[in-house]
């Protein structure tokens, strides 16, 4: 919980990691990708305040103690959602797997939610594994990484028929939250690989699942907004939005928040620190203090109030994951319903 000026913020970090990207985990023959990947992540850390930067050695492999201190002790987070990223083509034990996350998290009861993942290219075996992970770790969400390379196949789409079998399975198994990273699937290479049309199709066909598009579709925020505004079950994950822009590019950050508040709405925006790319502490404290610059360029955007921030920092994600929120952190009923699916502004009414 974060308390500031008498207001209490219940914080759910809905997008964070516990990875091992050190050389001991690199797949022989794929070293350049394993190294290139973590160095690419490391460049993102450069967008945060300098005093929060780590050495590349710590960044490649931080410890359980580092995480507990940075996220909970110093970082104000009440509950954190592990989002796995496997990348087993490049990392021997995976980059951060459900199992690695849960092995660590089980030593800290009540602190973590273990999301799992699937990949439609895994067929029947993947469905069995998904069932196993849900039974073992109680997963209520998945992180999907459509850009992941696999034996020559360079990515997949949410609208693929094979994917629909997995989405059906999610509904049967009680998984409700589908976190999607719209990365640059590399095939076919001649198209714009960040297309969001597949999220649109899947969200329409699976109205009982919530689709949380991480990084709010960066680098296609505009396309994401035009899609999300038409789908009541599409949410904007704020990972990278706050971490990557609030400090480094405050003016653009204000505009992006304004666009998201306008098209997607404050009930459908969820905080995620993207730890270990960035620590949550400066993001949460900075965001609670944040407001639009006081100039005409921002006058038309919906206001982001203390109540809005309470929703974005925790109440929306708590609703999506069924996390009990302490009485003193809840909002009065007249301040709207966190995670309400009817908040989207239909294009025709804009």
């Amino acid at each position: 919980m974060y308390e500031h000026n008498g207001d209490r913020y219940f914080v759910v970090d809905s997008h964070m990691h516990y990875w091992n990207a050190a050389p001991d985990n690199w797949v022989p023959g794929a070293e350049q990708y394993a190294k290139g990947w973590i160095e690419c992540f490391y460049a993102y850390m450069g967008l945060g305040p300098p005093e929060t930067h780590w050495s590349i050695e710590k960044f490649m492999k931080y410890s359980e103690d580092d995480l507990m201190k940075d996220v909970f002790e110093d970082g104000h987070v009440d509950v954190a959602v592990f989002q796995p990223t496997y990348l087993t083509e490049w990392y021997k034990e995976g980059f951060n797997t459900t199992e690695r996350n849960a092995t660590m998290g089980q030593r800290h009861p009540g602190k973590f939610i273990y999301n799992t993942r699937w990949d439609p290219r895994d067929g029947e075996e993947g469905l069995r594994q998904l069932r196993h992970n849900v039974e073992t770790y109680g997963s209520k969400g998945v992180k999907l990484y459509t850009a992941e390379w696999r034996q020559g196949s360079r990515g997949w789409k949410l609208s693929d028929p094979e994917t629909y079998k997995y989405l059906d399975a999610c509904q049967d198994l009680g998984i409700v939250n589908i976190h999607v990273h719209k990365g640059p699937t590399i095939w076919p290479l001649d198209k714009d690989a960040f297309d969001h049309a597949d999220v649109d199709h899947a969200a329409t066909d699976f109205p009982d699942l919530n689709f949380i598009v991480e990084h709010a579709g960066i680098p296609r925020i505009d396309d994401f907004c035009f899609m999300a505004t038409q789908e009541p079950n599409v949410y904007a994950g704020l990972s990278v939005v706050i971490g990557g822009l609030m400090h480094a590019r405050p003016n653009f950050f204000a505009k992006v928040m304004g666009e998201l508040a306008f098209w997607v709405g404050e009930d459908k925006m969820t905080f995620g620190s993207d730890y270990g790319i960035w620590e949550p502490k400066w993001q949460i404290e900075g965001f609670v203090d944040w407001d639009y610059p006081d100039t005409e360029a921002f006058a038309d955007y919906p206001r982001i109030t203390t109540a809005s921030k309470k929703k974005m920092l925790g109440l929306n994600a708590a609703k999506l994951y069924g996390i009990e929120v302490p009485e003193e952190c809840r909002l009065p009923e007249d301040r709207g319903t966190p995670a309400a699916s009817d908040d989207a502004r239909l294009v025709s009414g804009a």
Partner: protein
Amino acid sequence: MILASAQDRVLAALEAVRDPELDEPITRLGFVSSCTISAEGDVQVRLRLPTYFCAPNFAFLMVADAHDVVSALDGVRSAQIVLEEHFASEAINAGVASRAGFARSFPGEAQDELHQLRSDFVRKAVLAGTDVVCRSLLSEGTDPSALASMTLGEAPPSPDRERLRARRAELGLPVDDASPLVVDPATGYAVGGDDLPLHLRRAQSTRVGVEANTGICRGMLRHRYESAGLGEENR
């Protein structure tokens, strides 16, 4: 080529090469890491990008465009463009050098050349540029409903207006002063009064998206490379 001014000429030519997605010259973005020119006119330009995994299709376009503008300069005997430290460097550099085209440089992974991709992003540039021009009109007191009947020539002369005109020209959209100020970039027709508010709202979002991407890319490039690129601005 006279060496003292030769590099300036090459850099001036590279000003015409844009990152298709960010709609800015690769020089100003800091993507040109070095440029060497021999007495005989053999030019080597080395390019760098914000990350190892930047989209290879956009990277290919920038390398190929750089090759074209440098090769076309008077006094250049050969032009070699080298993309550094990118997962697809080898395929891109070899493909551009042999003028293989995109699809042949990535056999099995691409079906077409990149014209469609490029024009998709020029359409975004037209939308973003429309927001820039219209926003300044509105802040100077123009009534929003008047925008639908205004012409391009009625917008005050400015670099932003000429940039919008240039992007429209690339798509074959109307560009003369008598053409409508706000056109649908897909069709070239004027956007009518009823559709205008939503059109401008989308134009604004497109501009915010492009600007946010540019901000992230510049920040990551700075973190990846300590020294400024040739012609880099605002480091």
